[in-house]
């Protein structure tokens, strides 16, 4: 088989149509032969057997028929018992056997009597007696007289038909020797088999010959022409005769003619198609928008824009699943929409999703997706636009908007506070300053000493609240000094306010963990102290059942290149950090954004909070260009971390502690001091204090009045209220006075925080800024310092 297979696999066999036809023809011939032998031959054999059987039956039947006729004849004559007639009849019947045998030359016949003696035979028998018992097995009751049986007669196998004629009690046997019986059958078999085989072979060779003559050569011509066609030569082939091949040739010529026309059409179409494809490829590949096709969750096409954007090459993208690319947060939403499209539940979808790019960064895509069909299956066409910058801008805008809202709120509060602060400060000046003046004149054991002290402290507290409000509006004057935050915290922890706090929250413990090398910061010690106070106070309030307030300080360096999300907005540099954490109730997520809003409080208003504490903290941190980080877990506690930019080295000197106040030290020597204030009480208070200090005090109720006064007079020092509605303000007054008396010494007194106009005044030569309400010590120090100051005022 292997050898045959190898032979058949040779090109000469495999590539030749000739063999391709011949072999099937031979195979078909063999099948034909098989069919002929297995389907047609058996009936033929049966037919031949039937013929033989029929001859046997007919010969026997004929003999028995003769006997029957003779018997009938005897019956008709009623001579059936007549011995002579019987003998004559028997003789005649036996003689007829020979006559019958001439009609059936193949058949041998014999007649046996009941004892097995052969009475007559058409051949020369080997012996003249056959044992009748040998025949009994065939002549059983009800035997089939038409049956052909196989017998052994005279040492030979024969096919026989037996008949029994009872009147004579004869057994009539017609038989044919088996070899004679089978001879025509065997001959027929041989004839059919050899005949069919020969027919197949001859047919095959005739077919082969015809194939070579009529088909092969013309086909070769067609094949050659076909090769030429494949090379672009569309010349027709020569057509000869009028047969199938010539029809094929004609058809071939028609075909190549058609092909030529089609080729031109196809070329034109391909050209158009190529242009169209280029156009669409260019459109897709050069699109700034991301274009991708997704099927069964996988990206089967992605354009360059997508590849560039996600920083994956096209092949890598094609093996990616969409879920590998979408950020975890947006995954469910995005996949749900894409699945809806792929499942045919929707025609188009829109979403903004975050995608992970190869380097781990994230981008935001605005996606418009639609359902399409690719290779008969549903797919999703994605159009995406990179909106990362827009998103960041939006976020920033959102943040800005938030800030703006907060700023507007602050501004509103500031405006409100600013509106009342000036007047309150003026009013409070009376409450703060007068008791102070009075206390200087009475003994400590005097009955009025204590009430006056209480009035003074209340005034101071009220002034502090006003100051908080001003701080919020950024109108408070920030005294920028180089301060040590550890000192600020320690000072607070030793202050009466803290002691007071501890008395209210006796189950709260403080754990302060200062950094030993904590960097200094530039700032307002007052505000910083207030910040710490507010944070600690809030922490204590958050632990009604008690707990630990942990205060810690540390140094921190923010590196822009290594910024984390938390400090990404930090400016690069060193920071001194205060952290105040508690183990209290924590702040809910909803409340987190509101804690810095003014007047937002969870405490009962008026009892323990004003709603300004955290706003002051926020305002203070922002005033110091710092940052706040808040972490809170509901039920576990809150941690406020405040980052203050570290002070530069040259400024890194700690503000010296003020020397204990002594009246004698600040007493004047009769110098003239002009007090300019639109509020009479303020003028009286200022006059009272200054006169108490030994100065010669002159007053003016407006700026214009003061300028007029200065045109004709001189003053060693002018104390100017900044706001004096509706006339000119302190700065303008000072400017006009300077025009008259260049280098005039002056102090600005204002209920507002230090602002640009104050700063301008300082630039012009103002020696100090004093915050209202006037305190004895403050004004004494300021006036003394101003008068001592030899500041060269030059424009």
């Amino acid at each position, binding site marked *: 088989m292997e050898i045959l297979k190898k032979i058949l696999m040779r090109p000469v066999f495999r590539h030749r149509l000739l063999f391709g036809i011949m072999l099937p023809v031979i195979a078909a011939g063999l099948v034909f032969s098989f069919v002929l032998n297995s389907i047609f031959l058996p009936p033929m054999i049966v037919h031949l057997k039937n013929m033989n059987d029929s001859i046997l039956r007919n010969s026997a039947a004929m003999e028995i028929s003769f006997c029957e006729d003779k018997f009938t004849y005897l*019956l*008709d004559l009623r001579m059936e018992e007549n011995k002579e007639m019987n003998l004559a009849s028997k003789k005649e019947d036996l003689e007829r056997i020979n006559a019958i045998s001439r009609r059936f030359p193949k058949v041998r016949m014999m007649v046996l009597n*009941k004892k097995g003696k052969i009475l007559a035979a058409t051949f020369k028998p080997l012996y003249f007696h056959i044992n009748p018992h040998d025949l009994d097995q065939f002549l059983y*009751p*009800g035997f089939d*007289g038409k049956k052909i049986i196989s017998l052994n007669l005279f040492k030979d196998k024969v096919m026989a038909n037996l008949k029994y004629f*009872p*009147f004579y009690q004869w057994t009539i046997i017609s038989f044919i020797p088996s070899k004679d019986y089978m001879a025509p059958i065997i001959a027929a078999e041989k004839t059919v088999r050899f005949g069919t085989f020969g027919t197949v072979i001859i047919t095959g060779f005739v077919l082969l010959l015809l194939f070579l003559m009529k088909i092969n050569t013309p086909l070769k011509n067609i094949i050659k022409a076909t090769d030429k066609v494949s090379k672009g030569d569309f010349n027709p082939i020569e057509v000869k005769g009028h047969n199938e091949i010539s029809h094929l040739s004609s058809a071939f010529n028609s075909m190549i003619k058609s092909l030529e026309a089609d080729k031109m059409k196809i070329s034109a179409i391909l050209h158009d198609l190529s242009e169209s494809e280029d156009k669409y490829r260019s459109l897709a590949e050069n699109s700034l928008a991301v274009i991708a096709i997704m099927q069964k969750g996988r990206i089967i096409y992605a354009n360059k824009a997508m590849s560039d954007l996600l920083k994956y090459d096209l092949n890598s993208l094609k093996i990616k699943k969409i879920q590998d690319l979408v950020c975890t947060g947006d995954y469910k939403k995005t996949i749900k929409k894409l699945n809806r499209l792929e499942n045919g539940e929707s025609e188009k979808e829109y979403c903004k999703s975050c995608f992970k790019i190869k380097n781990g960064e994230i981008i935001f895509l605005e996606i418009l997706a639609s359902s399409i069909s690719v290779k008969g299956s549903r797919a999703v066409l994605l159009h995406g636009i990179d909106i990362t910058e827009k998103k960041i801008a939006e976020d920033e805008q959102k943040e800005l908007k938030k800030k703006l809202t907060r700023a507007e709120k602050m501004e509103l509060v500031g405006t409100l506070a600013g509106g009342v602060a000036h007047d309150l400060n003026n009013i409070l000046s009376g409450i703060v300053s007068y008791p102070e003046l009075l206390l200087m004149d009475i003994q400590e054991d005097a009955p009025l000493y204590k009430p006056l002290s209480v009035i003074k402290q209340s005034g101071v507290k009220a002034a502090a609240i006003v100051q908080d409000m001003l701080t919020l509006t950024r109108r408070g004057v920030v005294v920028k000094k180089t301060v040590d935050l550890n000192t600020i915290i320690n000072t607070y922890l030793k202050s009466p306010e803290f002691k007071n706090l501890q008395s209210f929250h006796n189950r709260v413990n403080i754990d302060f963990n200062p950094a030993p090398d904590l960097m200094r910061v530039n700032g307002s010690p007052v505000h910083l102290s207030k910040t710490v106070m507010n944070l600690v106070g809030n922490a204590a309030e958050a632990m009604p059942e008690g707990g630990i307030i942990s205060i810690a300080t540390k140094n921190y360096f923010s590196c822009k290149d290594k910024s984390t999300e938390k400090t990404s907005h930090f400016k690069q540099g060193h920071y001194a950090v205060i952290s105040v954490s508690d183990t209290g109730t924590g702040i809910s997520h909803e409340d987190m954004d509101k804690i810095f809003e003014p007047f937002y409080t969870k405490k009962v208003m008026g009892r323990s909070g004003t709603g300004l504490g955290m706003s002051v903290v926020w305002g203070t941190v922002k005033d110091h260009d710092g940052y706040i980080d808040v972490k809170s877990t509901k039920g576990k506690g809150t941690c406020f971390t405040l980052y203050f930019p570290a002070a530069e080295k040259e400024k890194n000197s700690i503000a010296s502690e003020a020397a204990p106040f002594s009246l004698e030290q600040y007493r004047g020597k009769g110098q003239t001091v002009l007090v300019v204030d639109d509020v009479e009480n303020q003028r009286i208070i200022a006059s009272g204090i200054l006169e108490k200090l030994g100065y010669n005090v002159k007053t003016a109720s407006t700026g214009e009045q003061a300028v007029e006064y200065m045109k004709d007079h001189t003053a060693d020092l002018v104390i100017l209220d900044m706001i004096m509605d509706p006339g000119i303000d302190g700065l303008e007054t000072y400017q006009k006075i300077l025009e008259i008396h260049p280098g005039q010494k002056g102090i600005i007194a204002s209920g507002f925080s230090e602002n640009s106009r104050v700063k301008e005044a300082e630039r012009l030569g103002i020696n100090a800024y004093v915050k209202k309400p006037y305190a004895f010590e403050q004004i004494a120090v300021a006036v003394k310092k101003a008068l001592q100051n030899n500041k060269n005022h030059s424009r």
Partner: protein
Amino acid sequence: MIIVNSGNYIFLIILTDLQVFLYNNIMEVIKKNFPVATIGILIFVLSVLSSPLYVYAETRPLYIGASISLEGKYEMLSWMMEKGYELWADEINCSGGLLGKKIKLVLYDNKSRLDLVKPIYEKMITQDHVDLVLSPYGSPLTLAASEVTEAHHFVMLACEASSEKIWKRGYKYIFGVYAPAGRYMIGFQNLMAKNGFRTLGVIFENSVFHTSIAAGVKKWAGLFGMDLIYTQSFNDGEKEFPCILNKVMAKKPEGLIFSAYPPDSYKFIKLMKKKNYRPRVLAFTIVPAFQDFHKRVGPFADGVFGPSQWEPVARLPFPGTAEFIHNFKKFTGKMPDYHACSAFSACKILEKAVKQIKSLDQDKIRDFIVALDTVTVMGRFKVDHTGLQIGHNPMVIQWQHGKKEIVYPESMETSPADFKASEK
């Protein structure tokens, strides 16, 4: 010839061609020679008036006597015979009668009783003055009736009897139509022997016909080399059948012949069915020939053989077979069996004899029949000097798949004998 039928009278006016010829010539002579013609015509008229120019006769019909069995064991068979007679009488009357006379059947009921037969025939001959007689049904009645007819020298064609005893008495006026009873089973036994069956039993009624049957069976068993291993006659089937059946079952013959009239035959079949006994080959006389045999005994009928004198098969090679079957069926509404056919054939032979001798002379009729060798609708008719039928041979029928088939002789075969028909 002009035939005018007016009631019971027949007028015949015969005008021959010769007379027409003469009339035409006379008229020609009259035209040419009137005086001579006138004298001639007068002479002619006178001569005609004095000769039998026309025949006018009013005669009594021919009376033909027969005895039928309107009850008793021959009732069914006798009915067929009677209808055969009547059909013939109807046909003969329709065709002008016999010897120019209408025939009238004179029928007397014998109730299947032997004692009534002789007086009936005596009365018919001596008192009724019948012109011809026909036989009753059955060998016993025929045997008795023939004593009277023989005494009065009346020819009787024994169309329903076949016992050889009838013709062994030296009678001269009785002739057989059926083959003799002893030859009834030749064909059946021949078929059995040819197909390898060797043993046989026979049960028969102890009467002349069935005894003849049994004698024939015995004789032919010997001639065919068969063993008759059981022979039993009976007088009262009702009482004897159980015992007989047990015996035959014990003997286990390959073939069994039961010969009796229909009532006993049906009783025996019923008992065989009850005993679930069925030999490989089974034959009955008489009943298998009935058209309703299969209907009466059911599938048991399949395979049963029986002798028959004739079968209503149109293609049988006898003249008038198809016409007889058609007419009988039209006349009675039923298919004829061989009893009807035999009766009709006997009448036809008698008719033939009378017509040939143109006389009712019994001796002349007798002589004519003795010499007759003819073929009737039933087959060949030829008798020997004793009157015994020797020209007719019976056939063998077998019920196969609910249908009656002729299985012997081969020349009349409608189907080959099937020895496995009862097993199918």
